[in-house]
């Protein structure tokens, strides 16, 4: 297999609308090998893979984020535009672009194709979903389309692998030449384009004509500051555009109209429509799914099914993780004699990391179910339904998916907000997301709730109420904040494509789930590993002399005593204060800290017995005067604190990355901590006052 040359490996980019089947095509072309990386300076994933053409040449295939046009309306789409123009640092523009279009919807997809052709890059059109188009009675002639567009058109059906070989063959060397712009405007417009191109070229801007067309075709690109475009270039564009307007020509409208004309001509030549578009199967389902009453019922049922599944089905694998952790702990512990290193490894590291890994089953399961919803097309309907509620509190329907993900773990939820176009709505969603009760809080709830309510039914109700409280507060605060943040920003309009219902691509869903799981493990896991080591050190040193409580003597105990006056108003003592402080790093730590402070040994084989021990220690603890140290009211105040506190440094780190602002990340941390403190304070003092 010769790669041939001294030439660098050519880059081929897949570009197309979000729901067009780009990723399925990517997988077909790459045999499902892919690398996930990052673009410099932005938090968008870069998905790429190496492929070999039938002639043995090596190429790098990149799956760019889906976009409807080169006018971006979200950070993802901006990356696609910038990569194609060659403006993104560290990324050359591709040598070839494969424009993936949906054969049954050419009018909607070809505008992007035209824009890609105008970039001056070689383009191949992958006419996807041909089988579906034919099933709908549409007959297409790829050869005619090739003639009309001036670029090779390959018909394919990615889901069945049809046309893939032909597509690969089209990637032969030498690469097809760049096509030309397919439309010509009137004299004034053409003159403006030529003029601006010349100016940009003299400024040393790469791809001057491509940039000129973008600048004239999109007023935001001219007027708003762009990280990758110089002010000089924009000034030139503004001048040229102003001239055109003075001559009574609106550049955006005219260019748009010219593109539409070209497309219409191409389609009428290449496509023959047969039969009418009646109500499809998807429409029938949507009669219920989008119905005000039926839709909400279906939605509630699906949500209930999801949560029920998670709690039911995650138990078994969670048991495996526990058993696994216990096994490793025993093995490692047995290899070394008693001593500090042994303790660090077993009680510290293995315990701590195990506490993170145990959530993996639930997180994976939730993402799997979300992936199914997305893949089947239902998620768009859910977003549609939720938009009403979300818009009332200043969020977008697209906030729904991130908020839902927050029930598993806030980190992927925050990352999922990238699809929200409005900056203000995106920021609001990120800020309130941690109040979605995540899985990390569950161990704490599992200890505390039974102390408050003995009956199983009562406990389940309480859990439900807790979730409700978290989400309710999140929405309420979003509403309050929306009045004070970003006022004056134009209200974004809701615009969403509802793809037809289809069977989810399970391969894609599985891969998605594994990616998310690995991301969680890497980000959360590495930070928690470090924290656990430090916590272990704080608890082990200084060493207590024989007979005295190690906890009280350790650095951790000292900090606790120091904290006591701060947490007293909440009804807590040093032990609870320290455990809570430690769990600011990771909530799961609360349980082990409390256990350590009571000198209870964790029993790996019986988690329930371990919890019972902790609970009875809490129940029977007495103050010097004989009264219970932790009456139900105190337990409640701890519970309330945990519902509201943001105790997850990895989340803060991700928020900072996504908002590019330490100010917001730290403000969120401080704000939620204060809120939690006040809530616990009110509950405890109020309850005491009322005589509980």
């Amino acid at each position: 297999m010769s790669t041939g040359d001294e030439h660098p490996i050519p880059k081929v980019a897949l570009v197309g609308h979000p729901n067009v089947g780009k990723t399925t095509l990517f997988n077909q072309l790459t045999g499902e090998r892919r690398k996930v990386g990052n673009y410099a300076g932005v938090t968008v994933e870069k998905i790429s893979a190496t492929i070999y053409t039938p002639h043995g040449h090596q190429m790098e295939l990149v799956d760019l984020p889906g976009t409807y046009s080169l006018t971006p309306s979200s950070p993802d789409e901006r990356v696609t535009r910038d990569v194609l123009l060659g403006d993104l640092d560290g990324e050359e523009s591709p040598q070839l672009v494969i424009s993936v279009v949906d054969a049954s919807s050419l009018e909607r997809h070809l505008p992007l194709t035209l824009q890609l052709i105008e970039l001056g890059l070689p383009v191949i059109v992958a006419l996807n979903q041909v089988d579906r188009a034919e099933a709908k009675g549409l007959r297409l002639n790829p050869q005619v389309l090739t003639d009309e567009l001036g670029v090779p058109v390959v018909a394919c059906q990615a889901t069945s692998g049809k046309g893939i070989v032909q597509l690969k063959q089209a990637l032969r060397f030498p690469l097809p030449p760049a096509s030309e712009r397919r439309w010509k405007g009137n004299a004034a417009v053409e003159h403006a384009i030529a003029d601006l191109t010349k100016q940009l070229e003299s400024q040393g801007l790469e791809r001057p004509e491509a940039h000129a067309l973008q600048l004239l075709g999109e007023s935001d690109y001219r007027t708003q500051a762009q990280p990758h475009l110089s002010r000089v270039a924009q000034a030139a564009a503004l001048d040229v555009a102003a001239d055109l307007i003075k001559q009574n020509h609106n550049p955006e409208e005219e260019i748009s109209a010219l593109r539409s004309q070209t497309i219409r001509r191409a389609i009428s030549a290449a496509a023959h429509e047969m039969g009418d578009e009646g109500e499809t199967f998807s429409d029938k389902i949507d009669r219920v799914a989008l119905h005000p009453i039926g839709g909400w019922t279906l939605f509630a049922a699906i949500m209930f099914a999801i949560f029920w599944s998670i709690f039911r089905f995650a138990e078994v694998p969670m048991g495996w993780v526990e058993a696994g952790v216990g096994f490793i702990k025993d093995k490692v512990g047995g290899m070394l004699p008693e001593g500090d290193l042994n303790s660090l490894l077993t009680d510290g590291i293995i315990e701590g990391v195990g506490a993170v890994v145990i959530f993996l089953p639930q997180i994976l399961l939730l993402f799997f179910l979300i992936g199914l919803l997305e893949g089947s097309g239902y998620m768009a309907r859910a977003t549609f339904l939720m938009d009403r509620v979300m818009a009332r509190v200043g969020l977008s329907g697209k906030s729904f998916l991130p908020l839902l993900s927050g029930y598993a773990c806030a980190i992927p939820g925050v990352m999922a907000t990238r699809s929200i176009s409005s900056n203000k709505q995106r920021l609001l969603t990120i800020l309130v997301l941690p109040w979605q009760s995540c899985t990390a809080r569950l161990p704490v709830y599992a200890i505390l709730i039974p102390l408050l309510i003995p009956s199983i039914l009562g406990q389940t109700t309480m859990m439900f109420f807790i979730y409700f409280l978290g989400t309710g507060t999140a929405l309420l605060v979003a509403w309050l904040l929306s009045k004070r943040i970003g006022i004056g920003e134009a209200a974004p309009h809701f615009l969403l494509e509802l793809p037809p219902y289809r069977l989810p691509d399970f391969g894609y869903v599985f891969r998605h789930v594994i990616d998310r799981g690995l991301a969680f493990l890497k980000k959360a896991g590495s930070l928690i590993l470090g924290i656990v080591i430090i916590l272990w050190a704080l608890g082990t040193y200084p060493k207590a002399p024989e007979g005295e409580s190690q906890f009280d003597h350790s650095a951790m105990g000292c900090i606790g005593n120091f904290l006591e006056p701060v947490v007293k108003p909440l009804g807590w003592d040093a032990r609870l204060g320290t455990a809570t402080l430690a769990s600011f790093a990771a909530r799961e730590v609360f349980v082990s800290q409390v256990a350590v402070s009571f000198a209870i040994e964790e029993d790996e084989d019986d988690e329930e017995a371990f919890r019972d021990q902790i609970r009875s220690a809490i129940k029977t603890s007495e103050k010097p005067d004989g009264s219970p140290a932790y009456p139900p009211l105190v337990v409640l105040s701890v519970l309330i604190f945990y519902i509201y506190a943001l105790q997850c440094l990895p989340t803060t780190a991700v928020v900072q990355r996504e908002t590019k602002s330490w100010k917001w990340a730290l403000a969120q941390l401080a704000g939620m901590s204060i809120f939690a403190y006040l809530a616990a304070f009110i509950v405890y003092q109020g309850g005491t006052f009322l005589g509980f």
Partner: protein
Amino acid sequence: MAFTTELERDSALNLSQAAVGCEFQVKQLDGPGCKQLREIGFCEEMRVRKVSNGRNLVCAMCGTRLALSRELAEQVLVTAV
């Protein structure tokens, strides 16, 4: 063939007012959101069928369903077919 007179435009039907279940043809996109509309595929001469009403309405076009807010729909001027 967009509207030529002010009168025509003012008395035109917009997608938000259009009747559910009927087919329409887009005549003109008029308003600040027309850029967004064009990108997702709306253009003059296109056939649209209105599927449902509400705060966000649903229409069918070129084989796909689109949901859009009422404000956006008011910027799509149509005639009945």
